[in-house]
């Protein structure tokens, strides 16, 4: 794709003490593109998500938004740019009800007072509440009483509320049943049609092959190849994840780096 990516990561590094969680990671997401981020446990996927969403900012590297470098130090920075995330641990508030969770941080107010009626009505009008066919008995039940799939509906509804340009989905289908997963993949298709850039983190290569346009592989905190889903076999991706074949291109890049140093 020749257009400027909405979000681009250049040379991202992140350390936890002596451990290098991420080393020179590159990533590009264009509008209306679904990029799958895959990798084995401990490859640095969740760390990268935290870098993008401002939960755990990077130590080094540049983040570009529509071609211009930006700083993301806090979750608030990412939100203002238009990055929304649905996290692996879902990050919902147990003590609030569905409406409270969907609108957390974006409450509708009339004259400084919370407008519960407006929020409840808008929650019911949210597309997802119907289309994911995951039944929530009432939007006033506390989130604690919902099942994993239902919680995810709430989490995604919340992410979409702010009209994001980039949506990050961290292991979204892990807690879902077969039918729910199918609905969910439909949803991702629709997000793509709307022009939202989606970063999908998943262990399930079937899901990845079904919806993603590009696949970025992380291995031990480094890029280990970018693939076009249509032209790449699942075996190639797997071997790239496990390191059975080190990707030649990234290898050379790393070489070039070391030569410069």
């Amino acid at each position, binding site marked *: 794709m020749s257009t400027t990516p909405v979000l681009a990561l250049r040379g991202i590094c992140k350390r936890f003490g002596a451990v290098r969680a991420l080393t020179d990671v590159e990533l590009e997401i264009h509008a209306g593109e679904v990029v799958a981020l895959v990798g084995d446990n401990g490859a640095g996927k969740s760390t990268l998500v935290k870098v993008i969403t401002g*939960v755990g900012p990077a130590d080094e590297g540049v983040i570009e938004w529509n071609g211009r470098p930006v700083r993301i130090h806090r*979750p608030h920075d990412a939100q203002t740019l238009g990055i929304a995330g649905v996290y692996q641990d879902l990050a919902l*508030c147990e003590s609030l009800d569905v409406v409270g969770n969907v609108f957390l941080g974006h409450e509708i107010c009339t004259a400084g007072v919370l407008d519960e009626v407006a929020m409840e009505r808008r929650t019911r009008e949210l597309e997802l509440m119907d289309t994911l066919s995951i039944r929530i008995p009432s939007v006033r039940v*506390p989130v604690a009483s919902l099942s994993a799939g239902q919680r995810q509906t709430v989490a995604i509804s919340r992410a979409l509320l702010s009209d994001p340009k980039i949506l990050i989905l961290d292991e979204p289908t892990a807690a879902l049943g077969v039918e729910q997963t199918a609905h969910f993949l439909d949803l991702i298709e629709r997000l793509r049609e709307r022009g939202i850039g989606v970063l999908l983190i998943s262990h399930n290569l079937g899901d990845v092959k079904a919806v993603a346009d590009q696949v970025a592989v992380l291995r031990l905190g480094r890029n280990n190849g970018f693939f076009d889903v249509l032209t790449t076999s699942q075996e190639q991706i797997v071997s790239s994840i496990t390191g059975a074949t080190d990707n030649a291109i990234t290898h050379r890049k790393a070489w070039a780096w070391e030569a410069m140093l």
Partner: protein
Amino acid sequence: MNKSEASDLNTTRAGGGTARAGPAADRRQSAEGEQGFRGYVSEITRKLRSGELGALPGVFSVVVIWTVFQILDHQFLSPRNLSNLSVDIVGTGLIAVGIVFVLLLGEIDLSVGSVSGLSAAVFAVFNVNNGVPEWLAVIAAVLVGAAIGAVQGFFFATIGVPAFVVTLAGLLAWNGLMLHVLGASGTINLRPQGLVYGLTNHYFHNTAAAYGLAALGTVAFFVTSYHDARRRRAAEVLARPLTEIAMRTGAVAVIAFAVAYVLNQFEGLPLALLIFLAVVVGLDFVLRRTKYGRKIFSIGGGVEATRRAGINVAWVRVSVFAVSGTLAALGGLFLASRVASVGQTAGSSILMINSIAAAVIGGVSLFGGRGRPWSALLGMLVIQSIASGMLLLGIQTTVQYMITGGVLLAAVVLDSLSRHSQKSHGRA
């Protein structure tokens, strides 16, 4: 359901929501079908079964305590004793409201007793010893409380020292500072007929005051509930049926006018009670109807979720500890007013224990995210009733401490059990 059907539903709903047969419409009806009195009863039984006890144990305790003491001593439910009770709960009650804020975060503030004593001492030294105008001394005392709360909150929220430890250090340090401020004499008597003296000694003798307040409260309750229900019905979301609103308003009216009647039998409406009610109503509004209050509840239910929602968690935490310090200072002034002096025993740790006990007995969860300022009032009523009854019967404070401790333990056990039960019912 396919996409076109879904979007159809959405448009009809947005365009005035004409009734339309569809899976979603059916679902909505079944969810809202159980309304009216029967729905209300089944909702309550469901809540009780799953462990959402709310204010019920507190109300139950008050009824039991009042019955027992009335049988043992017929003076207990006399207008004089009840009127005194209503003033006695205010000082510690205000401190307990601050504790409610902190407990909603899932934290604890052990320093409130010492802060209240120090603030009262600051007021007394400024006003009585140095002749600073009373209003200025009051502002200084309250600011001291707020500043101490903010400092403790800062250590907790940004440096990450556990709140328990920070405020435990505060408990000792502020008590020391209070003794230092009070100086050699140790006790400062307040000026009689002054502003602070009047806080707990002024009564509105005109019977219209108490009845007027009761009427105002009832009308306000009805109007807000009715208005809310009408807006909800107009927006097609679940609304309280009119019969339920009428029943609730009736209950509020009975309690309000009974209290007004009893108070008018003695000296009339106490100023202290009026202020306390105003603070509780005001802060209840802040907690449940403003963005700020929503943030406090959300931190209590999940710090990480709140942080990721882009909310400045540290700021909210600091501000909540400042609120706690402010209310502790206010409470300290009322307590000083009650005994017309500030002495070395002011701000004892029994005060802190009572205020935390009051909040928990009133139904605030120690685990955060559950409770209301009204809990402070209810819990104080339980604790002060025990104290007052024991005093009437001439039982020593030693026994009183033991009983209050027992009640606190019972409340905490109940809180833990209810949380356990809520978990097993998937509600916590």
